[in-house]
């Protein structure tokens, strides 16, 4: 099935501009520093300072992957849910296009996408002024598409579409599909209860054993996921205290499946 080209989508959804960079420090940084308007899309073949949370490096081979930032203003009272929307859109695009079986694509709280248990997509969103009603988000999305080799430090944690499916994908076509889905389903970004319900059903995280840590400087502890709240928070029943069952709700942190 052929999808519309990115330039067709640009017009169909009245986006502002698509900026392509051969090489740039970070698409999010560029969008923020230049205060690009809502509806801008920044795409790069290479990021020299791509980063994830806790300032972790986002490694990506030049020209092989999707590196993009969507600038979008939304009137919302629950800004953190934009990442659930973005991760669901990417997840939906990938699962509509590729059949990866039961152990295929998975959503990982708060907004990573895994393939075969390894990271294939990471999302990091920045927001400048939370106090305004209409909030401008810089949604950074990285997806490993045609990269075959990963550095030793992330080899066991990362994968790509080509590694699983043994065929290369058309990067522009994949971006066009993601943007189309993003624009077509935007109502979901405002509809918190539907969004978290859809995300919950897609992620199927309840009952899974995980290790949780708040950030790189804190110790991990293990437990069982008991739910995803309507505001996106994760509830984990910790099993670190002998004889004491304690449920905790977290708005920040990282889980890894064990």
């Amino acid at each position, binding site marked *: 099935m052929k999808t519309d080209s990115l330039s067709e989508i640009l017009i169909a959804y009245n986006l502002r501009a698509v900026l392509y960079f051969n090489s740039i420090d970070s698409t999010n940084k560029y969008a923020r520093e230049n205060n690009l308007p809502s509806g801008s899309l920044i795409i790069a073949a290479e990021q020299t300072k791509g980063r994830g949370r806790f300032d972790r490096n986002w490694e990506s081979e030049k020209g092989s992957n999707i590196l993009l930032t969507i600038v979008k203003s939304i009137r919302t009272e629950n800004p953190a849910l934009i990442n659930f929307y973005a991760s669901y859109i990417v997840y939906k695009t990938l699962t509509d296009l590729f059949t990866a079986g039961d152990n295929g694509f998975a959503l990982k709280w708060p907004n990573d996408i895994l393939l075969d248990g390894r990271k294939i997509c990471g999302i990091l969103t920045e927001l400048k002024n939370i106090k305004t009603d209409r909030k401008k*988000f810089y949604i950074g999305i990285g997806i490993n598409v045609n990269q075959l080799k990963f550095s030793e430090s992330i080899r066991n944690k990362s994968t790509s579409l080509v590694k699983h499916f043994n065929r290369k994908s058309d990067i522009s076509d994949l971006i066009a599909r993601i943007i189309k889905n993003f624009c077509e389903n935007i109502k979901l970004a405002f509809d918190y209860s539907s969004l978290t319900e859809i995300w919950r059903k897609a992620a199927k995280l309840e009952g899974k054993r995980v290790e949780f840590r708040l950030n790189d400087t804190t110790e991990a502890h293990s437990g069982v996921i008991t739910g995803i709240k309507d505001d996106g928070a994760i509830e984990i029943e910790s099993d670190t205290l002998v004889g004491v069952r304690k449920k905790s709700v977290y*708005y920040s942190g990282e889980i890894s499946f064990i």
Partner: protein
Amino acid sequence: MKMDLNYLKKLIKMLDTSELAEIEIEEEGTKIRLSKPRPKMVASLPVQAVQPAQPVPQQVLTEAEVSKNLIKMQENIETKNENISEIRSPMVGTYYSSPSPDAEAYVKTGDSIKAGAVICIIEAMKLMNEIECEISGKIVKILVENGHAVEYDQPLFLIEKD
């Protein structure tokens, strides 16, 4: 009223940053009384807060119900310390004092800042919120440690207005 650690810490902080010598609250049969020696400092300046005895808990507790008493007391404190403003967290999340672990903190105690300057990041579910200072003034105290969880409306900074 919820007699949890967070609630007590809020009370202690409030007493510390106020000119009150004593706070006494009674609700649902539970009584709390906190007192401190009379401050020797100039009345308009806040007393240096005593470090809480416990580290800030790592997990985010369900939002403690703020009693009417508490709100009334906050109002009192704010009107008494006209020059001192609190910058509060607009959301639940993790407090980061710098844009990245290796970078310098946005602000430190004693810094003069202009309204609109970024003073910290609150991260929740990988949404990084740059928190801007709404007023111009001097940072009197930073109330949260880097990498710690913060609750909605939790005071982050004390700022002496210009």
